[in-house]
Each structure stands twice: as C-alpha cells, then as structure tokens.
C-alpha cells in the first residue's frame, strides 16, 4: 500500500550521484519512513487494520486532510502560513449552502458563487500579506478569527441557528453530490470521490512544483524572496497565487462537507488548519520555506489518516489521538532535519 506514495523517479539526473544520496536529498524520505513505521505498527497491533474496508476508511480520512495539505504545503514551500485554511473550508460550504437556499437557486449557482467568494478570501490573504509586509502568521491569524466570526454571525443572522437549513431537496443537489461526495466501488473496496480529488491535486501540484516555471518561482520566493525579486520573479503574484490555491482546495473541501451531509455547522473547522500544517511539515516542508514536496504532504496526510483510524481499530481510547499526532510531528520534523543535514554534509 505504501508503494502508491513513493517518491517520483528522479529522471535525467546525473548518473554519478549515488542512489542513496539521491534518496537522502528528497524531502519525502522522512515521511515515507514514518508512514511505513506507522503502517507496520497498526498492522501488528490492530487486527482489523489490514482489511480492505479499513483501507478505504483510512484513505478517506487521509484524503479529507490531504486535499488541504497539498496547497498548504505549496504555500509553506513559498515561505508562508495560512491559519485561516480550516475555517475557510466551512465558509466555502456555508456560502454555497446559504446562497442556494436564500436565493432558491440551483445548487450549482451556490457552488459557483462559493468558488468566487472563497478565491476572493485567498486573494485578500495574499494582498494583505504582500501589501503590509507583516508576517503571514499574523495576517492569517487575523483573517482566521474574522472568518470564524463571520461564519457564526451570518449563519445566525440568516438562519436563526448555528447550522444551515438542509438543501437536500434543491435542484442540482444530486449532481453536485456526485461530484463532491459520492463513492466508487472498486472490486470489494469503496473509494470515496475525495480520494480521487486528493490524488489529482497531488499530481497537479507535483507537476507544477517540479516541472513548471511557477514551481521554480515557488521554491525561490520561499528560499530567498529578495534574490528572486532581483532576477525578475514576480514575488507578489506568486504569493497571492499560492493563497488562491489554498482557497481553491478549501472550496473543494467545503463542497464535500456540504454535500456529504446537506447541512453545515457554522462553528466547525477551527483547529483543522494545524492538521494541514502538520501533514505538510511531517511531509518534509521546511517551516522557513524553500524546501518540501506535495507528495511528502500527501504522505503526511496518510500518516494522519492511519493514526486517526488505527487507534479506533486497535480499540484504544481515541482521546490519546492528539497526543500521538503531536509526538509524530516532533519526531518527523527531527528526522527530516537530521536527514537533510546528513545529505548536505555529504554533498
């Protein structure tokens, strides 16, 4: 199973670089080692963990975090944070739900409006950051609280309660559910559509990072923004684009949330932004920017999925789950730092 998340073939590399050293230089290495360890651990301690149905549950849990972890990883490579990512997911869901309901419009209209407004949140984060030159931690901490307040405030103002009304009987609901919250059956295994979204995002993000000009710019603005600006890289546009990427993924996640339940709790999403950051950091993204990978972040999300469900399968008290998550973050980050140091010493 872990073979699906192996590092991509390092094509066209010069031959005289040893395989071991090439592997050591990859940002994903630490997370892959961690994923194998976690997998083996639960495979041994939790008997139901290896069943196909468990696999699909684990992958589903991984994908809900993974969809957000990918753009958050790109943003971290670009040297910034987004603490508003968690509540932005709920904002995206609330907007499309309430717009469709209040305007009695086709659900797809709400979905479209939600996409535009959520992307505008991303632009706002990016523009505030690049205009004020304040740390992204502060900017997005501000927008995090503002969105949290807006989610609650508007929902109560419009619907009178903290959750939205069901839109399940509205026109377009079923087709939208197919796109955002359905599942496919592959043999005896249920594949949630979010897994497809997740893997597609990982593929696109990896392509962008490693094979396009924009990818080069993302590494550069995170690694040394002044040097990048001096050689003509559009630093501001790159950063705004990265925030829009996070917003786009928040829109996908939000629609999934909405169409899997048909109503939304306006207070949800708080705290999830840390899960995304943990997945990206475990996956080898440097907190200071300029280094990391989308595949690593996917592996990080997979570790998250395995841990959250593995604890249940092992029939432990799930209260311990967050402790494991924190410990995992520390261990993985230490391992990553150690691996990178060794790789750099040898080159």
């Amino acid at each position, binding site marked *: 199973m872990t073979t699906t998340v192996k590092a991509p073939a390092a094509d066209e590399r*010069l031959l005289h670089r040893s395989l071991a050293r090439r592997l050591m230089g990859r940002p994903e290495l630490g997370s892959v080692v961690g994923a194998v360890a976690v997998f083996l651990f639960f495979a041994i301690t939790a008997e139901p963990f290896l069943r196909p149905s468990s696999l699909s549950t684990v992958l589903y849990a991984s994908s809900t975090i993974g969809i957000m972890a990918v753009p958050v990883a790109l943003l971290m490579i670009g040297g910034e944070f987004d603490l508003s990512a968690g509540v932005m997911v709920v904002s995206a869901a609330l907007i499309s739900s309430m717009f469709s309901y209040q305007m009695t419009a086709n659900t797809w209209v709400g979905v479209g409006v939600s996409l535009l407004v959520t992307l505008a949140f991303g632009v706002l984060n990016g523009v505030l950051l690049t205009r004020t030159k304040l740390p992204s931690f502060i900017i997005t901490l501000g927008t995090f609280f503002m969105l949290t307040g807006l989610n609650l405030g508007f929902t109560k103002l419009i619907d009178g309660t903290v959750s939205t009304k069901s839109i399940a009987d509205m026109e377009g609901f079923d087709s939208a559910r197919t796109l955002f919250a359905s599942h496919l059956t592959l043999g005896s295994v249920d594949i949630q559509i979010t897994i497809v979204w997740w893997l597609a995002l990982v593929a696109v993000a990896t392509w962008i990072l490693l094979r396009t000009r924009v990818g*080069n710019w993302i590494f550069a603005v995170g690694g040394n923004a002044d*040097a990048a600006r*001096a*050689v003509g*890289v559009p630093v501001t546009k790159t950063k705004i684009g990265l925030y829009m990427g996070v917003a786009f993924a928040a829109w996908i996640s939000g629609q999934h949330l909405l169409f899997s339940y048909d109503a939304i709790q306006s207070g949800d999403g708080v705290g999830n932004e840390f899960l995304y950051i943990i997945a990206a950091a475990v996956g080898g993204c440097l907190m200071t920017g300029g280094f990391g990978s989308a595949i690593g972040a996917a592996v990080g999300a997979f570790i998250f999925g395995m841990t959250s469900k593995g604890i249940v399968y092992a029939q432990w008290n799930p209260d311990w789950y967050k402790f494991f998550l924190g410990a995992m973050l520390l261990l993985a980050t230490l391992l990553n730092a150690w691996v990178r140091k060794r790789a*750099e010493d040898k080159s």
Partner: protein
Amino acid sequence: MTALVELDDVSKFYGNIKALEGVSLDVHAGEITCVLGDNGAGKSTLIKIIAGLHQHDAGTFRIEGEETRLASPREALDRGIATVYQDLAVVPLMPVWRNFFLGSEPRTGVGPFKRLDARTMRETTRSELLRMGIDLRDVDQPIGTLSGGERQCVAIARAVYFGAKVLVLDEPTAALGVKQSGVVLKYVAAARDAGLGVVLITHNPHHAYLVGDRFVLLKRGTMAGRHAKSDIALEELTRQMAGGSELEALSHELARAATPEFPGGHRPE
C-alpha cells in the same frame, strides 16, 4: 562611443535625508568602472538606482544615450543591466541549475503541458560554468553548498549568458579570502573581455586598481573624486579612499599609543 550607462549629477533623497547627491559616472563596453566608498557612502543607493529598485530624484540617467527612469529590476534586466548582489544573488536551497535560470526559465511543450526544459537547463548550466572554468561535478546540488566565490561566479556566468550588456557587481569580494577574491576578479575580467561594461562596487582599492579602468569615489553620499586609471596611482587611490587627512589624523592617534601597557603586566624585556 556612447556610454552603455551614464549617470549625470544624480541625487536621491529618502524623505529629508540625502542618500546620494550629484554623482556622475559612465560605463563603457569592455571596461570596468569601479565605485569606491566606505560603509554608508551611498554605494548601495547607487546600485539600487542602476538596478531599477529605486528611482533617482534629480539628475539624468541614460542608457545607451537615451534618458530613462527604470520602474523595476525586470525593466533593468530587459534593458541589459544585470545586477549581482553580494548576499542575495542566489536561493541557497535550490539546485544550481534552477538558480542559473531563475526568472528566465526556458520551456518546451504546448498549452497546459508547457514545462521546464530541464535537460537544456542542466546542460547549459554545466557548459556555461565550464566555459568560465568552473567544473561542477553535480549541477543538482543545492547552490548553498558551493563556496562564496563559486556562487558569485555562477551569478556572473548567469548574467553573461542572458546577454547582459552591463554587469553591476555589489562588493563581489567583500566576504572572500585572498585566493577566492582572485578567482572572482578573474571572472570579472573575463566578463569585461566578453565585451560587457562592468560596474564594480567595492571598498577595496587594491582589488579595484587591479581590474578597473575608471574610478568613482563616494563619500557620505557625495562624489569625492572621479578618475581614469591613467590619471591616478594606486597609492593615491588608496589615500583618497581611506579619507586622506582623516587617515593622517588616525595615524597620529595611533602613534600616541605606540608604547602601550601590555595587558597582564608582562612587559617585553
């Protein structure tokens, strides 16, 4: 022959602070113009004007005879002015080849499948560096693993490759040892021989005199002197650079302490 870059009586103010006042210099193809000055003399401000990061407030700035006001570093690059900064020339964690092409990446393919031409990028980086005498065993290594001198050379090779007509070098030897400085100066001379006009910013008159054709001395934001190499000897350049009379005062001060108390009370017999 028109100068590639010509500043005439250029000034720059930040609020009510005069960062630069009445500075003139010219840069010709195949020549090196050295800008000398102590810390705070206005060297950085001068670079930023030529590199397009800041605009001048008075005087004229001509590129190949045409009066201009650069809006951005990108525009400066498009007009053939490449600037290599001492500390921010490269992105340390990125591979050498990605750094070499940063901001001007070649691409292949069509439409949404347009991608970096990684093969060409790697091969060109290798051959261009080899042409300047740097034999890297691996262009995939992070550029941060190269020595300071090598990094400067990569940045210079990059500017030459991208068809710069004018190369602005900000203290390329400041953080380097004697041998590394020599290597960098060799590449500066190589860029000059390739027909580029070079602006070499430094506070080391010895390095400047080795390669320079013209010298501009800055002091507290104003121009303290402007000489061609034929008009000035190294000793005079060094004296002016060190501040002439200030140096005499300093030597006087130091002379008074010629028989110091040795710490620890041990006097040499």
